[in-house]
């Protein structure tokens, strides 16, 4: 084994190397198994202790599922498009996973010590793919419980589509009590498991062929638009009576539609060919998995190196509960698309921060699109709250929480300055005042994004109360700024203080992360819901005045936090 100028021939050493590694790491494997067993035990214990009442309620629901209501037939009509939308989003999310992580990943040590050797890549990578596929199938089966539980809760647990009470069309066999719920849950779990398996196969192929990565980035907005159209169809089905052929189109539009058919049929809906659909999905999943398993050996080395480094960074940050570092590592992995957006720099120095924030937004269109989508949902919830009448607090609070998320997404420019206080040294501003300057662009964007649909609804309904989200925008931005300038996660939060009610660590951690949204959403939820709940215009004016005062207070608080961040 020396340096040489001649070509080198090496016998295949894959089996001895893998066997040696297994032998050397046998003790580590046992420790890892014990650790996994401990975590399973801990989770099961916590679920039993804290979720006992929920489990008992679930068992009761299993034996006596909630009865159908007047809304149940509408839910059944909406189920095909709703489930197709959900499945399509799941498929896109899992496929996009291949852009930065993928089903085939190696730990950093294996990358550094084995990837550069002549050991057969297939022997290294195929077991990782098999493990990912098995975990994905299990996760899919578990995820399948969620839509099934939602349908049962909405009165579809009896499997007759609410026909017993409300005379909707009846397509499936009639099942009672536990058997109906089990059938529905089983169908949903099987469908989601197959969908996850198919998605893992697709992700494996995408990871293997880097040429497909730009294609996936291009096709994502189209898939999201189709899912949004399905969601719109589901909403239409909830509120009215769209042509039945549209539901059939959703169910046969692709694997995402096939994945919903067994669940729809088990709920008593119209999906007579569901065995064919589930069979096709199963075949597709097996084919995709088999093809991806073969291809796993060819995942490019550079991709494996980058992914191992990214996962290492994300794991370390997650272990320290540092969500910002997790987001930064994810963003650095390049999964999100960066647009080539240019903007002429301003001549006046004072405008440079606005220019930079606009540039950051323009170059991350997914952030802007996500904020727009969240804001539209929030406006929709405000409209629902107004129609709902008596108790608008819950929908208004949900709308404000969505609005807060949109505001937080738009504050990336401020977050970059908060990450590293040295970055803003050349700017002609004091660091503490950055909290105010950075608030301008997100506030304007959110006012426009919430204002246009809000004003349209307001004009259509002739009710100015629908503009209440606009009143809340500066407060939400102020809350987001409070969170942006919170600084590094203090490790002493983990220790907490022992009290007669238990250790305070968990509460302190939750407050540390959620201080901004709590400050912004809680008071505005009360103010906005009281403004919506009464026809008195004074309530809206009161919300406007108090909201402005809150926004100013949060801005000052964020500036103070920023000042401390710089000083610390």
């Amino acid at each position, binding site marked *: *084994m*020396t*340096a*040489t*100028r*001649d*070509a*080198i021939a*090496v*016998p*295949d*050493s894959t089996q*001895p*190397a893998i066997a*040696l*590694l297994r032998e*050397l*790491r046998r*003790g*580590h494997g046992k*420790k890892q198994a014990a650790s996994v067993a401990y975590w399973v035990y801990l989770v099961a214990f916590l679920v039993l202790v804290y979720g006992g009442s929920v489990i008992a309620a679930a068992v009761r629901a299993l034996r006596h599922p909630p009865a159908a209501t007047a809304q149940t037939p509408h839910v059944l009509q909406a189920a095909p498009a709703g489930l197709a939308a959900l499945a399509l989003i799941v498929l896109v999310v899992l496929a996009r996973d291949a852009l930065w992580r993928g089903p085939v990943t190696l730990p*950093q*040590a294996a*990358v*550094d*010590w*084995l990837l*550069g*050797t*002549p*050991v057969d*890549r297939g022997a290294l990578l195929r077991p990782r793919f098999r493990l990912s596929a098995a975990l994905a199938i299990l996760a899919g089966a578990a995820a399948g419980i969620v839509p099934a539980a939602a349908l049962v809760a909405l009165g579809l647990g009896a499997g007759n589509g609410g026909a017993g009470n409300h005379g909707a069309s009846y397509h499936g066999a009639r099942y009672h009590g536990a058997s109906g719920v089990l059938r529905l849950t089983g169908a949903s779990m099987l469908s989601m498991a197959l969908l996850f398996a198919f998605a893992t196969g697709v992700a494996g192929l995408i990871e293997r062929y880097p040429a497909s990565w730009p294609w996936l980035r291009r096709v994502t907005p189209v898939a999201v638009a189709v899912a949004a159209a399905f969601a719109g169809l589901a909403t239409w089905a909830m509120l009215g009576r769209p042509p039945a052929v549209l539901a059939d189109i959703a169910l046969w539009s692709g694997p995402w539609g096939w994945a919903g058919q067994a669940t729809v049929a088990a709920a008593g809906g119209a999906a007579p060919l569901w065995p064919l659909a589930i069979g096709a999905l199963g075949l597709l999943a097996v084919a995709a998995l088999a093809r991806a398993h073969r291809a796993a050996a*060819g995942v*490019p*080395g*550079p991709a494996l*190196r980058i992914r191992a480094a990214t996962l*290492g960074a994300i794991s370390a940050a997650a272990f320290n509960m540092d969500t910002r570092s997790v987001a930064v590592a994810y963003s650095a992995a390049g999964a999100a698309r*960066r647009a*080539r957006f240019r903007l002429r720099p301003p001549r006046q120095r004072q405008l440079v921060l606005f220019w930079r924030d606009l540039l950051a937004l323009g170059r991350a269109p997914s952030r802007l699109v996500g904020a727009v989508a969240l804001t539209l949902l929030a406006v929709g919830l405000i409209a629902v709250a107004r129609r709902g009448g008596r108790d608008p607090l819950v929908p208004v609070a949900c709308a404000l929480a969505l609005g807060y998320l949109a505001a937080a997404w738009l504050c990336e420019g401020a977050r970059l300055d908060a990450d590293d206080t040295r970055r803003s040294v050349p700017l002609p501003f004091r660091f503490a005042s950055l909290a105010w300057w950075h608030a301008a662009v997100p506030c304007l964007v959110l006012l426009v994004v919430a204002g246009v649909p809000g004003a349209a609804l307001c004009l259509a309904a002739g009710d100015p109360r629908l503009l209440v989200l606009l009143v809340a925008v500066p407060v939400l931005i102020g809350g987001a700024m409070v969170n942006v300038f919170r600084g590094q996660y203090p490790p002493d939060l983990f220790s907490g203080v022992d009290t007669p009610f238990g250790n305070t660590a968990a509460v302190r951690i939750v407050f540390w992360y959620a201080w901004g949204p709590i400050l912004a959403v809680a008071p505005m939820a009360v103010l906005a819901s009281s403004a919506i709940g009464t026809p008195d215009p004074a309530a809206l004016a009161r919300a406007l005045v108090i909201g402005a005062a809150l926004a100013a207070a949060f801005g000052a608080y964020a500036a103070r936090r920023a000042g401390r961040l710089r000083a610390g």
Partner: protein
Amino acid sequence: MPPVSIPPLLSLTGVSREFGERLALRPIDLELAAGTCVAVLGANGSGKSTLLRIAAGRDTPTTGRVRYGGRTLAEDDPVVRTEIAVVGDMVSAYPDLTAREHLLLVAVAHGAGGRAEALVDQALGECRLGDHGGALPGSLSSGQLQALHLAAVLVRPRRLLVLDEPEQRLDPAARRWLAGLLSAEKQAGAAVLLATHHAELAQSVAGQVVVLSDGSVIGRGTPEVALAAIR
């Protein structure tokens, strides 16, 4: 009788690399023959590591061509993995394997078979890790970890060494040892491509020096000529 020209082992022709809108490496040509050493000097962010990753087949150039031993270079080619030894910015190790076990794994993976133990002993001794063979990575200093990565080169066959700042974390005595090791590798017929911040190291082992700045070559030639250019 005209001199016989030896084809280079590694050749880079018009190689450049862009990351998004950032041009990390402007088009560069480079040739490396068996038994020679080229050192790449430059400040942080000048493109050294990018160039070395491309030369080791661990990154794909945006433009240009990389040939190794007459074939297109790709890390996924087992021959390339057999013949090119890389020491880069590796910082990780299996936390539960000793220094000796790490080297044993590399030796076996490269087909050492029954000679693996002897090779590992020899490499541990050469890299001044003889007393630390049974140590876990967590108990090694950063300099000893770097020596471990260098020892991993010695337990495997190699025709080309690609070393990205191998002197980092090494003390002055270890750096002198490193210079001796690289000279011996060169004499044994291996080609060495070395990125370094230490002009003295480059001067002592390299026949040619390339100086990079902001992804562009600003000096090239014998160590004396190239170093004079940057002074």
